[in-house]
């Protein structure tokens, strides 16, 4: 971002980047204040949203950094927040319940030490689910968010076979009273959207907002912006991508996972 050569477009980009980093910076400072508004209706923007008529662009790549040192084993706030916000419904049968995000308990077999890690769609740069989907319903948006276009999903579940993280759920039953922001119905596959509607409105994902009130283990931001909170944190914290050996380049990374 430092070299500001080239035409107007470049300059515009830089200005946007500046605005965003300013927004992210403000979010860092204001985070406790912002969370006061969370779920209370009119939420403040945590960062500069793009204008509604502008499509998502590859100038950004949204990602999450999960600091396991701050994630406690008993806490389930991110899961509850996601469930509340996106309204994935409890079917009464755990094995067919959709689950966009889950807390996985990790036990080191040698030391017996237990830790906990939230696992959701890892929003890979090369998502296997997108590669295998026959109709293209499984898709990656320009800004790196991996979504299911339920309009063309035929419910073949090949994406669920292909996903290395078990991030997708199939809807086994009729649903009713879906959330406006998350239309969801029987016979299609769904998974974490990184709260794409919130991001487009300049808000952080529901899990991140909820976590900020608890341990603050979740950091959200633009991986392509070196000034963003997540990029700065990534430079400081030793972090890992799950199943990095597969080379799918997840947008979700885990710090202090040893």
């Amino acid at each position, binding site marked *: 971002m430092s070299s500001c050569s080239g035409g107007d477009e470049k300059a515009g980009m830089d200005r946007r980047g500046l605005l965003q980093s300013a927004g992210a910076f403000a979010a860092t400072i204001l985070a406790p204040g912002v969370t006061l508004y969370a779920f209370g209706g009119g939420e403040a923007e945590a960062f500069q949203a793009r204008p509604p008529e502008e499509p998502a662009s590859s100038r950004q790549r949204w990602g999450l950094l999960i600091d396991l040192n701050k994630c406690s084993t008993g806490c389930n706030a991110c899961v509850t927040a996601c469930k509340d916000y996106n309204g994935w419904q409890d079917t009464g049968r755990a094995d067919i319940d959709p689950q966009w995000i889950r807390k*996985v308990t990790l036990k*080191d077999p040698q030391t017996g030490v237990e830790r906990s890690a939230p696992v959701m769609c890892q929003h890979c740069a090369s998502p296997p689910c997108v590669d*295998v989907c026959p*109709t293209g319903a499984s898709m990656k948006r320009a800004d790196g968010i991996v979504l299911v276009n339920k309009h063309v999903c*035929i*419910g073949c579940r*090949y994406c669920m076979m292909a996903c290395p993280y*078990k991030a997708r759920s199939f809807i086994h039953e009729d649903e009713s009273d879906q959330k406006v922001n998350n239309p969801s119905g029987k016979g299609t596959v769904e998974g974490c959207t990184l709260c794409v509607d919130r991001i487009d409105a300049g808000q952080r994902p529901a899990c991140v907002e909820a976590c900020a009130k608890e341990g603050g283990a979740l950091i959200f931001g633009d991986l392509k912006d070196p000034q963003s909170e997540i990029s700065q944190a990534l430079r400081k914290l030793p972090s890992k991508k799950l199943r990095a050996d597969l080379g799918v380049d997840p947008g979700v990374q885990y710090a202090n996972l040893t």
Partner: protein
Amino acid sequence: MAQIKFQQLTSASPTFWMLVLAHVVIVAAGLSAALYMETNGHHVTGMTNQIVWGTPHVFAVFLIVSASGALNVASVSSVFSRLAYKPFARLSGILAISLLAGGLAVLVLDLGRPDRLLVAMTTYNFRSIFAWNIYLYTGFMAIVLAYLFSMMDRRVSKMTAVNKTLGWTAFSWRLILTTGTGSIFGFLVARDAVYGGVMAPLFIASSLVYGLAFTVLVLLMMSIETHETLCTREMISKFRGLLIIFSLTVLFLTAILHVSKIYAAPTRAVEAFILRDGGVYPLLFWGGQVFLGNILPLLMLGYMPRAHSKRNTLGLASILFLVGGLAQMYVVILGTQAFPLNIFPGYEVSSTFGDGAFNPYSPSLPEILLGLSGISIAMLIATAAFRLLPFLPHGVPVDAHGVAQEPEEEVAEAGAAA
């Protein structure tokens, strides 16, 4: 060589109609099951968010793999110019189409949104092996139909070049098709149990066994219906030889698959699960696929008794090959999913979403009915074809004791001609 004579199926015996009726009942039950699954949602099946492909997929993949193998006999006759197989080429072609239709029907009816089939056929993601397979399957049907036409039309069948070209096209296409089917599993990087290139050749070898077993059984069945021995003694020994070779190939490739995965430390756990600790999966693998599905029929074919009981032995062996095939598909498809994904290597994991746990699965009745109906759909299509057009060869008439009136000389002569 004398003109080969073909016949239509004209049988109206009670056994024939009972069989047709049985198939119709199974198809009706399967369609009702599909409707039930679609209206209620997949929660009425044994499938879950951990086991996403179940019994319908076992049958569907089994039938699709069998379909490409059923074309074998036709390929042997026109690609490898073995005249002895020529009388069975038509039957082999139509059986391939029937089995594929049966398998695809099951696959489509199990979709979460079968009503969106049109979407599946108009919206493609060309990076998906599934999407390639849609082309491979429809292309296979078109090519085999053209191939059948070239065999059955009086004028075109005399054009050796056309027949040969279509024969080669169909043969190459079926190899690619089975490669595609095997790669549906082989390309799953995250699924340790199946990831790897060996899945494609393994599926091709399996297809040769299943397809030929289906062909043999249909021939034996039709021999009863036409009161002629369609499967001559000469062909029995040829089919026997082929089945032995194909089955040994399957065993060999299965061994490679597992030994290579046992050798590599990261996949040792999943192999221990499938081969030793996984409950129903080791049972189906060793007892179903290996023993019942390969070793036993190999022994039966290897030490085949003399005289006309050979025919029954071949039939029984074919049934066993098919049972073994179903067991093999069950282990491949469900065993793979039953074993937990390794997301955090080196940790003991647990969660509310089945992490680190072996995923249970028990097939539900609707799933089984839907799966079985695939076989019945295939058999009904084949039967209808047999009645409409001359697909069946003329065989040797059977005497009152059910013994074929087969002169030994003719066998030897035909063998020499081949």
